[in-house]
């Protein structure tokens, strides 16, 4: 993966708590979550906000881990890598973002969910989350199918984009934001 991509992500967002590029495993995710806990503790971030940061980090990184795993089985083209970044700007807003390479098939699965999420307000999102959790739909997916809805519940804003690499491959970048002042939303 292009190192410039990391640099671009870092430069935009002030203080970086954690950045990682490469292969993801559960052991690594758990070690990085521990490091974030330490950071949050030392920076005196409140429990509510810090737990949301951890959950966002875990969802995004386990997502990347799972997408690369599914590809392990189905394709010779293995890209088990991704970028993940946790940062804070000068105002105290937090950003948790990730970027990885996904297939067109994954894109077609993710994009409608994110579009739906963007169209919902907080109450609508809560309702949809509970509907999906109840219906058990998509439970064949590792995350139970509600991962992006969980992410949306835990943050104040989401931005995402898909950048085409070739016919079947896309960069998927997702940025989640937690605002210190909730009115900014």
């Amino acid at each position, binding site marked *: 993966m292009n190192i410039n991509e990391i640099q671009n992500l870092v430069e935009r967002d002030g203080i970086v708590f954690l950045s990682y590029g490469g292969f993801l495993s*559960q052991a690594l*995710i*758990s070690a990085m*979550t*521990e490091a974030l806990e330490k950071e949050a503790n030392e920076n005196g971030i*409140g*429990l*509510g906000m810090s*737990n*949301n940061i*951890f*959950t966002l980090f*875990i*969802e995004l990184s*386990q997502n990347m*881990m799972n997408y690369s795993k599914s590809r392990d089985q189905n394709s010779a083209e293995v890209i088990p890598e991704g970028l993940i970044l946790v940062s804070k700007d000068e105002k105290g807003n937090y950003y948790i973002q990730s970027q990885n390479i996904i297939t067109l098939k994954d894109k077609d699965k993710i994009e409608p969910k994110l579009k739906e999420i963007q169209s919902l307000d907080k109450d609508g999102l*809560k309702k949809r989350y*509970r509907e999906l*959790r*109840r219906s*058990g739909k998509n*439970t064949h997916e*590792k*995350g*139970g*199918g*509600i*991962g992006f*809805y*969980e*992410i949306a*519940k*835990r943050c104040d804003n989401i931005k995402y984009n898909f950048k085409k690499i070739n016919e079947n491959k896309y960069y998927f970048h997702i940025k989640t934001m937690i605002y210190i002042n909730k009115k900014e939303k």
Partner: protein
Amino acid sequence: MNNLNIQETKYTPKIDLDFENNTVSIIGKSYPENTFEFYEPVIKWIEEYFNNTEKDTISINFEIIYFNSSSSKLFFDLFDLLEENNETNTIVINWIYDEENESALEAGEDFQEDFENLTINLVIK
């Protein structure tokens, strides 16, 4: 029926399923890699518990600091199982949370709304 105790890890909670005392407690963080596999013995134990007891009072203590979305789904299925056995048993669920931990409170409130027939107490730690 045997008790089941699972030690806490960095990403899974401490779980104690106690047959004699009719208590279940799940305390800690929950973001396993394979959530459904991790909790399978817990679900099995609770199913077996209800098959082995006649009209009993069971108390269930949840104290989850943070969790991933598949754990959220799993807890939903667990509450579903409890609701199925709610008429023949007295089930008391304590959803324990830290006052500052708004998302844990919100998760407890969601379960209250989704399972109106269950007794779910929101308990400040």
